């Protein structure tokens, strides 16, 4: 934007108005981030020793691989299911839509521990789900739904789904319903109208929701720890352990830095692919 219309004193005044927000961000966001960065190159001694471990320590690669796999699966399932719900929200009446939004927002109010233990009750070997399936005769041996990646994904989808729904809904509600009718009127079946007209127009929304859910799920550590039973170690959990249990702060901050870099790269990629303002309404 050009600032030719503002003279320097006016500019100073407007910058002054932005100052409190800038200071707040600097004090509580930028400074801690720089501290983390500083720790990662100064602890235990000055240098890039911590970062060298990325190449020499195979554990980091394995943990990152697990993290990416679980997060990709979580994202695909959350966005896939979320699309269906978000689409439904655009076609139901206003009262049903309010009820749906209420239910989605309500899930945010359950603490992570409550959710995790609820899933343990549901999913464990003698849990409600296995009991039900055994009684119905669908299976003859209990399914292993805990202490593995399946359990972790189930728990994480429960978090990712509401995020995906809200992100997709803000995109889908802006769709012009006339276009679907036009496609039908020109000879397209319902499926053709959806695949050729509706779905392509929602791609920006799908991408935006995917990146959002993916970044969100990268930071999970309680759900993987509890539902994975310590067997599924993801990057956030590993950082916590390095900080709190093995007390290798330099190593932990190096891992945290890699996480921040991944998130920024993803956001940059998304902003190149889609117009962020458009994608989030």
């Amino acid at each position, binding site marked *: 934007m050009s600032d030719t219309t503002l003279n320097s004193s006016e500019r100073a005044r407007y910058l002054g108005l932005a100052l409190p927000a800038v200071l707040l961000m600097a004090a509580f966001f930028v400074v801690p981030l720089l501290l983390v960065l500083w720790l990662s190159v100064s602890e235990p001694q000055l240098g890039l020793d911590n970062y060298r471990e990325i190449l020499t320590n195979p554990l980091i690669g394995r943990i990152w691989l697990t993290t990416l796999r679980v997060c990709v699966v979580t994202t695909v399932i959350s966005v896939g299911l979320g699309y269906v719900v978000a689409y439904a929200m655009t076609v139901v009446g206003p009262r049903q839509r309010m009820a749906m939004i209420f239910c989605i927002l309500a899930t945010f109010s359950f603490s992570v521990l409550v959710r995790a233990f609820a899933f343990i009750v549901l999913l464990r070997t003698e849990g409600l789900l296995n009991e039900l399936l055994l009684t119905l005769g669908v299976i003859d041996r209990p399914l292993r739904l805990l202490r593995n990646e399946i359990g972790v994904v189930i728990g994480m989808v429960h978090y990712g789904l509401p995020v995906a729904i809200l992100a997709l809904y803000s995109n889908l509600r802006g769709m*012009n319903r*006339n*276009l679907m*009718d*036009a*496609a*039908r*009127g*020109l*000879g*397209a*079946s*319902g499926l*053709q109208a959806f695949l*050729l*007209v509706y779905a*392509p*127009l929602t791609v920006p929304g799908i991408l935006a929701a995917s990146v959002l859910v993916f970044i969100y799920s990268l930071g999970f550590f309680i759900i993987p720890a509890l539902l994975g039973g310590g067997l599924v170690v993801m990057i956030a959990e590993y950082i916590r352990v390095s900080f709190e249990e093995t007390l290798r702060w330099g190593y932990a901050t190096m891992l945290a830095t890699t996480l921040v870099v991944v998130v920024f790269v993803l956001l940059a990629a998304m902003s190149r692919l889609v117009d962020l303002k458009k994608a989030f309404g």
Partner: protein
Amino acid sequence: MTIADSARTSERTSHALKVNGISKHYGRHVALDDVSLSIPRGQFVTLLGPSGSGKTSLLMAIAGFVSPSQGQILLDDRDITSVPPDRRNFGMVFQGYALFPNMTVEENVWFPLRVRKVSRADAQERVRASLNMVQLGHLGDRYPSQLSGGQQQRVALARALVFEPDLLLLDEPMSALDRQLRAELQWELRSLHRRLGLTFVNVTHDQEEALSMSDEIVILRSGRIEQAGKPADLYAKPQTTFVAGFLGDSNFIRGRVTASREGGFDLVAGQATIIQSGSAPRDIAGDRALVLALRPEKITVCRTRPNLANSVQGTIVDAKFQGATYHLQVMSPDLGLLSARMSPATDQAKPEVNASVWVGWNPDDAVIVRES
């Protein structure tokens, strides 16, 4: 192409449509109330009415987007009432055009062929021809957002016609365009209709558009057909006050029949006795007033008493110069406010406000209408 040739093609490609007593209820709201309509092949028919008259519901029922609560829709005697819109093979130009923003102009026009399993390569010639028909052959690579309103309208037309539909449906195709462009496109649509010989069904609330483009106009009101006919007939012989007022302007003269004779009768309105040709409808007898509709351009305005069968005195209360005509408002003590048009060339009376004038007309200038 000779006229005989074109007549033959139109016989081959155009279809007749019949609507048999269809009704549509939305809860307690009645959108269409027992509407019957017969559209001969190759006609340009306009459904005209104010908003909420049911004209769009009727078009949507024909297109297949609205399933009627009652009644049938027949295409050449084939019942299509329950055929889904994508199987009807009707071309449609939507209000606002509904072009697909993610596709180029060419891809938009290809779309109806694409869903009919015609590959892009095979469709190319027809797509090109269709775009040339609307003079947009050079803009095939553009996206709809890069086109003007008039160009978008043409793309919508090309897209609706490229697959040789059995019928072309137009939902307020001009409503988003400015006046000059609208007039231009009206000519084009007329000539397109003549060339293709296809049956066109157009919906509009613009009476001028309806009058200038259609072979036949169907006037709807509150979900019912008020009157249907050729534009000139509808204009000259409206049957109800609604039609007389909606299609062009009309003055209404209400009075009581006092004397009847062969070929005419007398009507008393205020202190004036009006001589009217035709015969007074029987059910008007008694206390009910009879209504005459008189077009403003049928009225002669002069300084002195005109040599016409009917004349009353009045005062000009307003005069608007409209280029080709003056539009006058004349207050008559007997008949109330009368609207009249006169050409500026005639010097019968200078249209000055407050001038005292005579207005006159002949017994067959007014038509008997039903109060509605």
